[in-house]
């Protein structure tokens, strides 16, 4: 167990981190992600307010759509990354645990009169169900209510009498979904899903933080505090695609300036031979000059590679560039590779 943003979170369950990762890729992983926060924005002017506050294009979303976005400050630095759900008459915004209070204050402070901002995190539990058989399992307990919903949409469903907001989203590179429901039903729903998996012969296991990290890493998804943070701007992290320059949003003018000048560093993926790269490790050019630092690194169980994400000087960002990463004092061979290492199942 490890303390995480005020929660005690298992790094891994007795299954073990590598096996948990592989189970999620081959069957179903259950993720207890109650630490994630949920902020609701509603009232007259809510649409324009949310659009001006988050980076992504959202006004074209239909009711029930879900979309990834960043929350930027005026310098274009990344305060958080979000999943924004458009629900009938309201916006449901999923935020990271460590940023929940700051995000809530950020929305609240900027909200014009009439717009309501409510933090639902305490009353709402959140479980992610991910993997190639996740929808099959969820269909069995919801009367077939989930597989009919397209990727990046949501629906109100009932799982054995528990009212659930289901989003066909997730952060592992597998299909599946994220479940929002009343916190007092958490244990009941968790055990019900494990039991149904067992009964139907659908391998279903609890997945800890370590495998959650390796799954999202392989699939090329950022983790706040690593690939993105309040010290990293959206462009150098490669998130132009999550910023809608056709609209006005917080951070836009700063990003336009950065764009014009060209980012000073870029996020790249590297593969390493001869060691495990980790956060904080230094990168050097083949000539030995310091050129950047790893922000996350690990063994990737599906692709069976040692890999890292790192910020490097732009001239070293091209795929195929040979670098060195300093592991325990020794420079080891590394090469810049295309991200993601694992193409998400729903994009293939």
């Amino acid at each position, binding site marked *: 167990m490890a303390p995480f943003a005020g929660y005690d979170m298992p790094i891994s369950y007795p299954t073990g981190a590598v096996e948990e990762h592989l189970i999620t890729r081959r069957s179903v992983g259950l993720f207890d992600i109650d630490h994630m926060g949920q902020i609701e924005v509603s009232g007259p002017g809510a649409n324009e307010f949310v659009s001006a506050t988050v980076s992504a294009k959202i006004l074209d979303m239909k009711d029930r759509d879900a979309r990834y976005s960043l929350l930027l400050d005026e310098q274009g630095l990344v305060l958080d990354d979000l999943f924004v759900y458009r629900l009938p008459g309201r916006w449901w915004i999923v935020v990271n645990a460590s940023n929940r209070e700051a995000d809530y204050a950020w929305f609240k402070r900027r909200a014009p009169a009439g717009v309501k901002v409510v933090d639902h995190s305490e009353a709402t539990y959140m479980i992610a169900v991910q993997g190639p058989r996740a929808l099959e399992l969820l269909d069995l307990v919801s009367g077939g209510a989930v597989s009919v919903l397209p990727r990046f949409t949501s629906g109100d469903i009932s799982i054995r009498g528990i009212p659930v907001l289901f989003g066909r989203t997730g952060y592992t590179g597998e299909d599946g979904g994220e479940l929002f429901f009343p916190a007092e039903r958490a244990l009941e729903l968790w055990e019900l899903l494990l039991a149904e998996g067992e009964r139907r012969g659908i391998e279903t296991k609890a997945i800890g933080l*370590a495998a959650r990290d390796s799954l999202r890493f392989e699939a090329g998804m950022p983790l706040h505090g690593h690939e993105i943070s309040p010290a990293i701007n959206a462009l150098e992290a490669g998130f132009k695609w999550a910023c809608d320059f056709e609209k006005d949003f917080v951070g836009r003018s700063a990003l336009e300036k950065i764009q014009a000048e060209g980012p000073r560093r870029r996020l790249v993926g590297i593969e390493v031979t001869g*060691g495990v790269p980790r956060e904080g490790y230094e990168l050097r050019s083949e000539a030995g000059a310091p050129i950047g630092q790893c922000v996350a690194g690990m063994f990737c169980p599906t692709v069976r590679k040692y890999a890292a994400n790192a910020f490097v000087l732009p001239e070293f960002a091209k795929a195929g560039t040979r670098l060195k990463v300093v592991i*325990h004092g020794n420079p080891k061979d590394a090469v810049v590779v295309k991200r993601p290492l694992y193409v998400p199942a729903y994009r293939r």
Partner: protein
Amino acid sequence: MTIDKNARYRTSHEYARREGASIVTGISDHAQDSLGDIVFVELPAVGKVLKQGEAFGVVESVKAASDLYMPLSGTITEVNAALQGDPALINKDPYGAGWMIKFAPANAAEWDGLLDAAAYEKEAGKE
């Protein structure tokens, strides 16, 4: 926790087991269990001369890197090449297929300073 009764141990959890004139070393079952899934191991070159307590390699689990220490002084005679492709052997069979190095001890008297199985079991049990 399983203990190899024929081995002796360092408090840093490496074991040493006599095989003829050689010593076989790896990490204990207790150590592999505490580390969790092992994903990489770096081992010395054959022929390397190392003193007791000197680092002979590094073992990396999912979350952390740990140095490995020589239980006795000696010259490396063999390393377990199978660990490069399958470091999880250390988790599965730490005293058998998960062995790490074999070496020719330089000072046999150092053996007597290591913990025997009963003393190590007591030591590991405190953690």
